């Protein structure tokens, strides 16, 4: 590391620690101001309507002006349910019938938990804070990385390396200091989920793995909280409101949970992360904003509780007498919203099933219990299947970046080659768009998606079936077939699978031609051989 690099790291750390300190001071200030306001209110005999906190910026000068306060000697008596500044701050949504005073008071007295402070959690939390939700909890164990910034709008360049939760709360606080923010610097685990969820009214799933999605859904069912779940990848997004109304397991009128819709997790190998598949900022941003919208709708309408349902209504599924839930408060039928940025129309709403009679979480036959969850006996990671690191090749089929570098510059001969040491074929199996970003001189691009698509039994079949897909095989076959083939990718996983496939296709000429991969791929090349090679 150069001294300049060290200086940069040190400055970043100093800035991050100052930010944390600054935030602590702001917290203390807010608390002190609240205490002062409350004690002055107590001594002045002011009528407390018990409708929430006092805004730190409501100044005494402001409090005595206008018709909203009645003079009572020198003391002011508050007559309005919201603070004066709140009418101004939330005025544009207050005048809408969908919110109104009742909706705003519900927002103010509500608490929302945002699990994940990333591409979904940032925009979701921003709009919830802006709308005046009383308390927002944020859970995330990660720190801010530069590659997050194109979509995770609460973080900033100077806060790279800071815990995401702290960075997000710093932004949220400057957006709306009157909201109470609760940080949780951890990954959500089964053991802690229920204790945290019970403190909130609505839960937002803004995470990025199947394991966390099942865990959050189960914890929502057990703690009887509505769940607003979203996900995004590449140009697509999905949104569902689950467990709404949040009735206890076994009540058919409750909303379906994640397990009703997806009883079994997808094969681990089919799950693609944003890091591998890519993500467009506004796509995931759209989904996060929609989560905030659904949450505001749920809260402003009033969350349906178990007590809102008459027992006969629950048993027979029929409204009875006066205890019919207010139709305006009835939850919308379960649906899945699909967003596909490059399709026309881009939005599509799908009708979903209701609660599944045999659901393992929300039916009467539930096997997901509080005790099982808290004790950690439900292993969500195992349930969803961990992706084991690819280990498809023998040691003799792999070279390190150092060895490959020496082969390139001719200081050691390529495998099994007695002729020109640099004579070999370098195949880069990353997708075309990544290959075009950066590649090693002389490499040829055969994307792994094309390699994987080729059927190895093809040799037995007439090749007329898919001639275009065999092009790459023919090309490699005709290229001097004694030259060894080195396969490289971004991290060293696909390259191994591609080598396997090439051998299955008989490209190793019955074992006379060496085919192998470069261990740990171009990431290792950048780290250990050429620091100027772009990292993305």
């Amino acid at each position, binding site marked *: 590391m150069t001294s300049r690099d060290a200086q940069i790291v040190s400055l970043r750390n100093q800035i991050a620690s100052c930010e944390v300190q600054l935030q602590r001071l702001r917290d203390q200030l807010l608390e002190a101001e609240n205490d002062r306001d409350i004690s002055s209110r107590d001594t002045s005999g002011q009528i407390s309507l018990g409708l929430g906190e006092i805004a730190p910026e409501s100044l005494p000068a402001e409090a005595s002006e206008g018709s909203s306060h009645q003079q009572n000697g020198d003391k002011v008596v508050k007559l309005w349910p919201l603070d004066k500044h709140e009418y101004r701050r939330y005025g544009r949504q207050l005048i809408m019938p969908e919110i109104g005073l009742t909706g705003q008071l519900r927002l103010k007295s509500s608490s929302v938990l945002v699990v994940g402070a990333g591409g979904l959690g940032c925009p979701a939390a921003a709009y919830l804070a802006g709308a005046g939700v009383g308390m927002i909890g944020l859970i995330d164990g990660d720190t801010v990385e530069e590659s997050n910034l194109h979509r995770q709008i609460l973080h900033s360049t100077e806060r790279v390396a800071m815990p995401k939760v702290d960075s997000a709360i710093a932004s949220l606080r400057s957006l709306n200091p009157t909201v109470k923010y609760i940080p949780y610097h951890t990954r959500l685990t089964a053991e802690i989920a229920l204790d945290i969820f019970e403190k909130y009214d609505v839960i937002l799933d803004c995470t990025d793995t199947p394991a966390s999605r099942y865990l959050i859904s189960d914890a929502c069912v057990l703690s009887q909280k509505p769940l607003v779940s979203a996900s995004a990848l590449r140009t697509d997004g*999905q949104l569902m409101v689950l467990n709404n109304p949040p009735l206890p397991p076994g009540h058919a009128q409750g909303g379906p949970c994640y397990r009703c819709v997806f009883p079994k997790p997808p094969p681990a190998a*089919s799950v693609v992360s944003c890091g591998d598949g890519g993500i467009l900022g506004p796509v995931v941003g759209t989904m996060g904003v929609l989560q905030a919208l659904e949450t505001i709708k749920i809260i402003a309408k009033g969350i349906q509780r178990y007590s809102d349902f008459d027992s006969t209504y629950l048993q027979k599924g029929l409204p009875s007498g006066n205890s019919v839930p207010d139709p305006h408060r009835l939850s919308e039928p379960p649906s899945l919203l699909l967003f596909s940025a490059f399709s026309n129309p881009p939005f599509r709403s799908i009708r979903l099933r209701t609660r599944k009679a045999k659901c393992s979480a929300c039916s009467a036959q539930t096997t997901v219990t509080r005790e099982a969850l808290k004790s950690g006996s439900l292993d969500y990671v195992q349930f969803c299947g961990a992706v084991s690191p690819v280990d498809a090749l023998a040691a003799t089929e792999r070279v390190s970046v150092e060895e490959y570098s020496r082969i390139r510059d001719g200081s050691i001969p390529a495998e099994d080659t007695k002729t020109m040491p640099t004579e070999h074929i370098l195949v880069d199996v990353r997708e075309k768009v990544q290959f075009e970003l950066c590649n090693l001189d002389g490499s040829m691009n055969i994307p792994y998606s094309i390699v994987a698509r080729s059927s190895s039994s093809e040799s037995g079949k007439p090749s007329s079936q898919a001639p275009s*897909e065999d092009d790459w095989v023919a090309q490699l076959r005709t290229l001097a077939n004694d030259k060894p083939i080195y396969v490289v990718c971004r991290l060293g996983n696909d390259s191994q699978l591609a080598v396997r496939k090439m051998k299955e296709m008989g490209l190793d000429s019955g074992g006379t031609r060496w085919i192998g991969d470069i261990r740990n791929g171009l990431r290792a090349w950048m780290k250990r051989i050429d620091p100027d090679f772009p990292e993305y």
Partner: protein
Amino acid sequence: MSAASTEDVVPITVEFSGGLEMLFSNERKHKLSIAAKDESGLNSNVAFLVRYLCDNLMKDPRKDLFVLDGTVCVVPEHVLSPALTIQRRPGILVLINDADWELEGEDKYEIQKGDNILFVSTLHGG
């Protein structure tokens, strides 16, 4: 074309989303005509459609990314019992005219003219 032959086929739209389109030549929307009756002369249902897609539309050999039991697709048609259920792979939703197939009878749903069948893979990124 005779009137009889147009009655033999059912024109439908099949769509793929959430990454499944990659298994189908990277096309999201396919307009197809499938046989109105399956191998045993019964009205073609979703199970038949899934087999049809595996055998005719899907060029990618990774059938396991689309159906639960890949062997279903390579069984010669005459051996295949129409009663054999095809299971969607976990993590894929089958939507019939914008409704979850569980609301429509799952794989037993009989395909109608002009139906829109959408296969969606769940996303997990965030």
